[in-house]
C-alpha cells in the first residue's frame, strides 16, 4: 500500500493562468526514497508544498485531483494534523527558523514543545537528532549566527525530531559544502531504511544516483521521466530539456565518438561507475596494443 498517493493533481497558484503542476500521478511506498529533479520553475517546490499540505491550506489557489497521505485526503485535513504526518524542510532555512528561540537546541525543540511532548522526552529526542545531523557542537549557538549550510542542518534537525511518516525536502543541501552534502544524504538514507518515506527535490544527481530508490524528472509542471535513478539520470532527453546531468555522464558521452567509452557499457552517473568504465577501456586497449 502506498503511503503517498497523488491522482490527476493539477494546481494553479492564485491569479495565474498556467498550472504549476499538471496531471501528476504519483505513488510512493512506505520507506521509499524518491528524488525529484527538474530545472528551476519545473514545479519541484510546488510538488513539495502540495505533499506538505501548504497547498491548498496556506497558498490557496486552485487544487484539483486527489492528494492522499496515509489514507487521509489533504482537502479533508487540517494543516495542524497534516504537519505531524508530513514534515517539510524548506529550501531556504531562513524561512524555516522560528525567530522565537535563542539557541539551536531550543529551536529544534520548538515543534515538540508545541505538540505537548514531556520535557524529558524532548531533551532526549533533541540530543539524539543533534548528534545525527552533526550539529551537537552548535547546540548553544543562536540559529541566526550560523552559516547557511549550518542553518540547513538545523532546519533538517527540527523536522526529523518530529518523526514524521513522510519527510519532504526542498533542496536541503543547496548551501552545504560537498562533504556536508554527502553526510546529509547519508542521514536521510538511514531514515528511509528505518521506514520513513522520503521525497526530496534536489539538483545534485551524483548523490541521487547513490542514495535514492527512484527518480522523478519534472518538466513544466508535468512528470517527464520516471524510473530507477540510473536509467533516468543517463537519459539523453534530460540534456535537451536543460536538466542538470552528472559531469561523468557528460564526459562519457563526449568519450563515445572518440572511442574512449565502450559502446555496450551503460553511461556512468557516479565517480565509481566512471572509474570502472574508463579503467575497463584502458585495460582492453592495452591488451590489444
Amino acid at each position, binding site marked *: 500500500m502506498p503511503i503517498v498517493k497523488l491522482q490527476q493533481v493539477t494546481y494553479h497558484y492564485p491569479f495565474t493562468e498556467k498550472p504549476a503542476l499538471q496531471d501528476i500521478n504519483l505513488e510512493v511506498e512506505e520507506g521509499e526514497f524518491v528524488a525529484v529533479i527538474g530545472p528551476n520553475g519545473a514545479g519541484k517546490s510546488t510538488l513539495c508544498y502540495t505533499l506538505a499540505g501548504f497547498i491548498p491550506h496556506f497558498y490557496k489557489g486552485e487544487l484539483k485531483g486527489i492528494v492522499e497521505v496515509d489514507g487521509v485526503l489533504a482537502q479533508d485535513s487540517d494543516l495542524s494534523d497534516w504537519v505531524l504526518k508530513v514534515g517539510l524542510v524548506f529550501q531556504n532555512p531562513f524561512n524555516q527558523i522560528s525567530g522565537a528561540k535563542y539557541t539551536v537546541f531550543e529551536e529544534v525543540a520548538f515543534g515538540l514543545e508545541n505538540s505537548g511532548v514531556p520535557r524529558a522526552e524532548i531533551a532526549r529526542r533533541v540530543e539524539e537528532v543533534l548528534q545525527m545531523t552533526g550539529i551537537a557542537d552548535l547546540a548553544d549557538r543562536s540559529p541566526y549566527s550560523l552559516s547557511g549550510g549550518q542553518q540547513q542542518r538545523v532546519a533538517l534537525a527540527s523536522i526529523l525530531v518530529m518523526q514524521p511518516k513522510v519527510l519532504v525536502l526542498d533542496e536541503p543541501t543547496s*548551501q552545504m559544502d560537498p*562533504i556536508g552534502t554527502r553526510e546529509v544524504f547519508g542521514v536521510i538514507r538511514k531514515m528511509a531504511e528505518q521506514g520513513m518515506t522520503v521525497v526530496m527535490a534536489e539538483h545534485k544527481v551524483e548523490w541521487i544516483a547513490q542514495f535514492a530508490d527512484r527518480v522523478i524528472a519534472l518538466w513544466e509542471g508535468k512528470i517527464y521521466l520516471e524510473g530507477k535513478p540510473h536509467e533516468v539520470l543517463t537519459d539523453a532527453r534530460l540534456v535537451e530539456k536543460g536538466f542538470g546531468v552528472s559531469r561523468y555522464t557528460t564526459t562519457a558521452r563526449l568519450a563515445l565518438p*572518440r572511442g574512449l567509452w565502450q559502446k555496450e557499457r551503460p553511461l556512468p552517473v557516479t565517480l565509481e561507475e566512471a572509474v570502472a568504465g574508463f579503467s575497463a577501456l584502458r585495460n582492453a586497449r592495452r591488451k590489444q596494443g
Partner: protein
Amino acid sequence: MNIQIENLSFRYPNGVLALRGVSLEIAPGEQVAIIGQNGAGKTTLVKHLNGLLLPTEGRVRIGDWDTRHYSVAKLARRVGYVFQNPDEQLFTKTVADEIAFGPRNLGYSGERIQELVEDALQLTQLQAMRTTNPYDLSPTWRKMVAIASILAMDTPILVFDEPTTGQDAASVAHLAMIIAELKRRGKTVVTITHDIDFCAENFARVIVMGGGQVLLDGHTRTVLGQTEILAQTYVDPPQITRLGLRLGLAEVVCTPQEFLDAFEKQCAA
C-alpha cells in the same frame, strides 16, 4: 584597482574568532573563487571588502582606501556586493527600480543610470521582467535581480556570495557567462561558491579557506589537485579532477575535454 588584505583577524561580538591572520592580494581584473566548508570564514572575509565588517586586527585596502577610514556608502563606489540571500537586499516595487537604486545613489546622471540599467537587464536576461515586482519572481530570478542591481553600479570590484546556490544547470551556465563578460570588461570578481565544478571551469585562481585561515591560494589546477588539504575543509576536488586522480593521469584535469585528452594520451602510452 587592487585588493590588499594584511594579517586580517576578526572576532564577532559573541566571541567567535572567524578570521585568523588572513593575508592576500587580488590584482585588478582577476577572477577569484573562494571555497571551503560552512563556517570557514568565507562570508566574513568578503564582508570586509566593502566595509560591512571592519578588522579586529590587521587591515584591508581597496586601491588606496583603508576600509577603516571610509564608510560603507563610500566603499560602494569601488566594491559591489551581491548577498547570498537576495531577499536581504531587494525592496522596491519593480525590477527596473531595484536596479536603478544603486547607480542613482552613486549620483550618476539620468542618462548614465538608464544606460547602466539597460546593460544590467540585458546581461541578466531580465528585460521582459523590468516592470515586475521582484517578489513575484521565482528565487532564481530574484537572485538575478540582486546581481543586476549590483552590476548597474559599475564598480571595478564585484563580490558574489554563493551565486550558484539553488540554481539549476541553465542558470549556472548563465552566471558563468556573466562572469566571463565581467572579465572581458576588466572587472575584478570575487566569488564564494560550494559548486566546485563551477569553480574549476570558470576561475583561474582559487582560495581555499578553513577555520578562519587561508589553507591554499593559487592557480586552480594546482589547488584543486591537493585532495588532502581540501578534505580538511570539507571540500572534494571537482568531479572531473577526482576522476583523473583515480585513474592516475599525469596531470590535474578540470574539464571533460581536458580529461579526455589526458586519458587518451595515457591509453596510448
